[in-house]
């Protein structure tokens, strides 16, 4: 047993708010969990050694601003070390959008909290019992919210924090939500988000997990898709001492479509672990997932892509593609496809490859006088950049592109 987890359980007993009855159920489950080791499948390639006996402050008085993104006019909801610092009452919200603190009792929160996220995620349960701070974003039926909503999560130094995002999209509603996390200090942040997407609703989603250095970031984004709903999600991750993300996309209705692009760029010695699970529980759903990683020297990436097509999920179309580029012999990737198909009339493709250079593309660049080394840089970065170009929000793409390019160039230099 980990001392840290024992502490979590102790602290959970002291949490007392309107969600306590639900938290109690999570706590019971948490108590049944054993601390993951190498034989725990979900943690096989990611050691939790750094968390085991971790003891950090549980609050801070650090002040921080939301990182500015040129051309992005977002509704910013800012957490600093787990504290919601944005006065929600001051927000000027468009019609059809309600934003509440998790501390305030609401039907929307009750409807979503622990109802989308599967209960087998250990740190999800930790978040269930400890995250008193959070936001509840409620989009009314038919409401089209053009202004992106950005949840900023900043972790400073020597602090542990737990935050929660609950999003409910009413029937035929449309919204964009950005989860933007960062921090370089020695910290532990769990950040879990649940999205309940009703019939015909459309969610554009981004998760930027840009923690670096000594930060420990464990979190998840979990989506439940009802009939004919649409999800377009992009996850961009750095590694840090330890970054672990779990994404669940659950087709709970028919004819839903999910697109999930994710890219991770790991500087030397960083660790990044993404477990994605696509659950096709109902017929006629489609999923397209592109996972691409560039891994620097002595860095380690773990990608576990699971597609589970239930017996009733006929006419499912699911594609998952994972490509990785290792920048040196010391770089490491553990990629594992997991296909479980119980319906017979489905189309499912799942591929994991180490990225290869497209010789024709290389030749084309060379004929334009670009030297080979630069051409390889362009093509190698290109395969991650392609996912950036694919982001529907151009302001976000324009902001990310040079940042990632710089990170990639630094990685090349140090590999």
């Amino acid at each position, binding site marked *: 047993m980990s001392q840290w987890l024992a502490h979590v359980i102790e602290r959970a007993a002291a949490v007392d708010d309107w969600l306590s009855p639900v938290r109690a159920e999570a706590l019971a489950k948490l108590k049944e969990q054993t601390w993951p080791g190498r034989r725990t499948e979900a943690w096989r390639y990611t050691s939790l050694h750094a968390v085991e006996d971790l003891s950090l402050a549980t609050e801070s008085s650090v002040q921080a601003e939301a990182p500015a993104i040129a051309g992005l006019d977002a509704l910013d909801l800012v957490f600093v070390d787990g504290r919601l610092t944005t006065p929600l009452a001051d927000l000027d919200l468009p019609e059809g959008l309600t934003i509440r603190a998790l501390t305030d009792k609401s039907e929307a929160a009750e409807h979503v909290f622990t109802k989308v996220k599967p209960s087998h995620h250990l740190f999800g349960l930790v978040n269930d019992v400890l995250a008193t701070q959070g936001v509840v974003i409620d989009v009314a039926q038919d409401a089209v919210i053009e202004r992106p909503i950005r949840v900023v999560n900043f972790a400073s130094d020597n602090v542990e924090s737990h935050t929660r995002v609950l999003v409910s999209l009413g029937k035929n509603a449309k919204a964009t939500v950005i989860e933007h996390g960062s921090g370089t200090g020695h910290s532990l942040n769990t950040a879990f988000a649940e999205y309940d997407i009703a019939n015909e609703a459309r969610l554009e989603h981004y998760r930027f997990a840009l923690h670096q250095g000594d930060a420990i970031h464990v979190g998840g984004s979990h989506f439940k898709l009802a009939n004919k709903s649409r999800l377009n999600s992009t996850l961009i991750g750095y590694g840090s001492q330890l970054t672990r993300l779990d994404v669940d996309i659950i087709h709970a209705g028919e004819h839903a479509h999910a697109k999930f692009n994710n890219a991770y760029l790991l500087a030397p010695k960083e660790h990044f672990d993404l477990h994605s699970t696509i659950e096709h529980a109902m017929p006629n759903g489609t999923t397209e997932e592109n996972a691409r990683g560039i891994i620097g020297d002595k860095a380690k990436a773990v990608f576990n892509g699971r597609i589970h097509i239930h017996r009733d999920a006929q006419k499912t179309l699911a594609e998952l593609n994972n490509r990785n580029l290792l920048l040196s012999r010391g770089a490491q990737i553990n990629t594992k496809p997991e296909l479980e198909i119980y319906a017979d009339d489905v189309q499912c493709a799942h591929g994991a490859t180490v990225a290869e250079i497209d010789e024709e*593309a290389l030749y*084309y660049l*060379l004929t*334009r006088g*670009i*030297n080979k080394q630069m051409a390889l840089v362009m*093509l190698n970065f290109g395969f991650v950049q392609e996912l950036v170009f694919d982001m529907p929000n151009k302001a976000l793409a324009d902001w990310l592109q040079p940042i990632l390019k710089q990170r990639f160039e630094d990685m090349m230099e140090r590999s």
Partner: protein
Amino acid sequence: MLTIKDLHARVEEKTIIKGLNLEIKPGEVHAIMGPNGAGKSTLGYVLSGREGYEVEQGEVTFNGANLLEMEVEERAQAGLFLAFQYPVEIPGVSNMEFMKESVNAMRKARGEDELSSAEFLKKAKAACKQVNLPLDFLKRGVNEGFSGGEKKRNEIMQLIMLEPKLAILDESDSGLDVDALQVVANGVNSQRDGKRSFIVVTHYQRLLDFIEPDYVHILAQGKIVKSGGPELAKEVEASGYAWLGQAQEGEEA
């Protein structure tokens, strides 16, 4: 500018170019016509140095240098440009960064300073306008999702930006309507300055109405079987290549 002597080249196990001779002087425009599969594209690939295209015999001199000893990018930096018959799509690289790297690589090779972002943008915008491509195309992936015509115009835009000494245009006219053809031809003509040379590979006389060649060559079965002035293109237009096949069969028999 370019001298090709008795060139033999093969792709994989198959010899495609079989004893080709060609002399191009500064400022000249040479049209190369010929049936499908004659080896026109192969010639362009061999000259540009594509991997897998192996020279078995012969010499190629480009402005006094031995072209065949140079790397692909060195040939380009020395002023050789190939407009592809089938331009390549590179979704993860934007046209902007592609062109910027390329223009600056050429400038560096010529001993010139790199362009600033503003200078580059100005030049790129003008070139876009000249070939009728919308500006937002600069932000898109290289040739990604472009129509056939847009890809061809992109090649010409690169030609304009890179200012090569010798440009090989491989069927830059195929699949274009008359308006697009005009755009391509105008782009090429704008680069004719009496010093630059061009090899215009085409199937049809049509393009040569707009880009008037000094010489026309017929390439068949890996060599030039006939050369002449612009009137040769008109002959081909009227009679096709059937005579060629017979003549060659006769030759071989």
